[in-house]
């Protein structure tokens, strides 16, 4: 079976299947006791039915593969959305296949998809998985399983994929953004990066200078847009571990996470310094990813 990356298929009776077997035994005893020829015949017919479904259940998962796409990082508490792709390489319809993913950790948490039926070809499914802790959420290889057609047997196969999702700390804390260490212009918010060329609008955020608010739009009741300017050197922000006056390291990380998000949004260049290392001074989504990853993977103290 181990051809072209396909893993082995395992099959065992389900609880319902065992119950069915017990029922068959009782039926057989009844047929023997009343010496009922038709009783024998139908008991054996149901036995045959159960045996035949072994093959049908097994066939239903053969030549079905699971492929995994990369999973976007999420903040703790948000569900991680695992992108799965089921591929049916057989030339027949496949019925009611479920995917089950389980966390690597001791927590018994698992997630199972609704049954999916596939014609020949591919089908994408999304499997949400609740996250609780920052760090790598590594899952056991997902399991494909099916109990089609009668639910008496369960066939399963472990896939070769190793799904993982980076979980950032949950942004939290209400401390104001520290003052930028260099640059010119307003004290609050290095927004827009500079102040020379107009480059667009964005919605007003706490800390924006009233001078940049586009008041005409406010008068037209279009929210509170803020004019952005580019061209000048953005202000630089040092965000450090010791700058958060909180005892609990997790709360520190949460506050740092909030700051990083705000700093990126407001257009600062920023640098994150943690006791185990520091990032470059930069901005942009790549910089945000590097910094958030540092937070996510910061070793827990306990």
């Amino acid at each position, binding site marked *: 079976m181990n051809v072209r990356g396909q893993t082995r298929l395992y099959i065992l009776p389900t609880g319902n299947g065992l119950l069915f077997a017990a029922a068959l035994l009782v039926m057989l005893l009844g047929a023997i006791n009343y010496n009922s020829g038709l009783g024998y015949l139908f008991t054996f017919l149901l036995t045959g039915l159960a045996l035949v479904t072994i093959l049908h259940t097994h066939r239903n998962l053969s030549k079905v593969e699971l492929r995994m796409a990369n999973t976007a990082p999420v903040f703790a508490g948000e569900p991680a959305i695992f992108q799965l792709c089921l591929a049916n390489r057989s030339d027949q319809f496949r019925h009611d296949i479920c995917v089950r993913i389980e966390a690597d950790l001791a927590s018994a948490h698992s997630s199972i998809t609704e049954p999916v039926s596939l014609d020949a070809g591919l089908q994408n499914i999304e499997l949400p998985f609740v996250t609780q802790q920052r760090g790598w959420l590594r899952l056991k290889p997902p399991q494909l399983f099916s109990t*089609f057609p009668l639910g008496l047997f369960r066939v399963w196969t472990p896939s070769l994929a190793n799904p993982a999702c980076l979980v950032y700390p949950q942004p939290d804390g209400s401390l104001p953004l520290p003052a930028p260490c260099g640059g010119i212009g307003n004290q609050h918010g290095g927004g827009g990066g500079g102040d020379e060329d107009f480059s667009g609008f964005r919605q007003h955020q706490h800390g924006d200078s009233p001078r940049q608010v586009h008041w005409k739009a406010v008068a037209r009741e279009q929210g509170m847009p803020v004019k952005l300017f580019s061209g000048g050197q953005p202000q630089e922000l040092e965000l450090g571990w010791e700058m958060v006056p909180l005892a609990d390291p997790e709360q520190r990380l949460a506050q740092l996470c909030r700051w990083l998000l705000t700093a990126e949004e407001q257009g600062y260049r920023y640098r994150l310094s943690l006791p185990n290392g520091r990032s470059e001074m930069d901005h942009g989504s790549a910089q945000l990813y590097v910094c958030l990853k540092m937070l996510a993977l910061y070793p827990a103290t306990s």
Partner: protein
Amino acid sequence: MSKTRLPSPEQMHWLCTAMALVIAPHLTRLPLWAGISFALLALWRLGVAHGRCTPPPRWLRVFLVLAILPAVYLSQGTLFGRSAGLTLLAALAGMKLLETHSPRDAYVVTLLGFFLVITHFLYQQNIAIGLYMLLVVVLITATLMSIHGHGLSLTPRRRLRYAGILVLQAFPIALLLFLLFPRLPGPLWGLPKDAYSAVTGLGGTMSPGSVSRLSLSDAVAFRVKFEGAAPPVSALYWRGPVLWNTDGRTWSGGAQGPTHRLANDRGNGGEISYTVTLEPHNQRWLYALDLPASTPRGSVLNEDFQLLKRKAIRQRLRYRVHSRLDQRPHNTSARSAARALALPQGAHPASRALAQRWRDESDNEAAYIQRVLAHFRQQPFYYTLRPPLLNGDTVDEFMFSSRRGFCEHYAAAFTVFMRAAGIPARIVTGYQGGEYNPLGQYLLVRQRDAHAWVELWQQDRGWVRIDPTAAVSPSRIELGMDAAIPQSLGPPLLGLADNATARELWRNFRQSWDALNNGWNQWVLGYGMERQRQLLARIHIDARKLSELALALAISITLSMAILALWLWRRRAPSDPVLRLYRRFCHKLKRRRIKCGPTEGPLDFCQRIVRQHPEFATEAMEISHLYIDLRYGTKRADIMRLRQAVKAFHP
């Protein structure tokens, strides 16, 4: 898969329909309340599924569950046995249906459904119920598929089809298990008393009306397959209980002496061998042609030449036996023959007086016997199925006033006349004749062929059979019951009973139907330990050895599963005819070692052929372009052209 999801209305429809169909044939056996409450509970559950009714309140559910056992006990008088068990099962099925909240519950209901299917076969096992239950099994299987959301991707019709295919594929395995699974002989535990309440047949006694009661029954008594030509109908006296004693109305009693051992005089010709398949009649005796010359396995022959089993026959029994039509029992001593002279004190005074007078007037015994038989023949005696009720002295009343009777009246009166004249006489009950079925080549003996005749003791010849009925209605003996009382043969349609053609058609139909039933009885219902042993001996399997059976079962079932697996995993031709044609084209090239790569599209493949094998260029280009157009392009090309091109392509 979530456990809390309620079954959808569609799933409830499947479940309720399947359960209603499995319970329907039981309605005549179930107490009225059980049938009605099942229907109400099922309807209520459907109402809940559609949001038209509120679910039952908790107190009601508790009350219903608690009420089941007392209700069964009150209506059945017991909690054990077949009927009580069935009622309990039906009531539980209704309750569980109402209580179905999860796929697991629904699964339990379908299991109860399968159970109820089997319970039908404790009551009846004919072909019709078998076929009906086969359909029900398919329906329950489809229901099982719809639970858990399985096969919800299939339309109901396709789901039924899939279930039908599953059952069909299960059939060979069922057959192997049926033939090879070791059969155990009897009940494993004591059967409840109600198991054999409805069997018909001759009892061990005879009184006016006891045989004619059976004459209205078309039920099968037994079937006989002769090894060779069947004797004429007039010789077919199937010997049953022999009656010696009378109280003036009822005849009873049997052999008092020891078991009779057959003299080993087999193999000197004149012997008739045949196999009887006896319907269960809840009595110990077997029927055999007068006179049995062998004892089937497990039976003994008593002094009256009656074959007896150790226990009452409660399942269809098949036995092979030999008979000698030319022999009479002569094993009785003169002393015990004297027992066959007794008449109750003061009974039948008129008959005894007449008998005494005739005996005195006759020269010898033979003349006397002829005189009595002539009396039956010449006086207006009538052979009738509906003799008048006799209240006083049954024999005197019959002989002198009513003169209408069935065989038991004639046999009783004749025996009294013999005994009164000092000739030892006894009554033999059994069956006479039968209907030959040319299709199945067997003789069918029905309950209405029940008969009673007389045996007279003659010192030199033994017990001689005399059938007084033959004197009154010779056709009864020569042609059988149907000729004597033809009304019973007509089709059950008004106005057709007199039509000869209709009667002939009806007879043919009944014969084929009975031949089918006989096959069914022999091979499905009567397939037990004996039959299994005989059948398997032919393929050199000793059914007495458990290990041989187990090995045969394991090998044959594995083999059939392997064949099924090959069938299930077979490569299938694609359903698209265009793709099929293109594959054939590729296959033809493959034989010339030109293989289409796994990632090579039709256009690339075509170009490679043109490059590497220019001799096929024109054909390959035509086929490839037709294929591309039909499958991916404008689809304006004619598929017939592709078909012809592929057909004409011979690389």
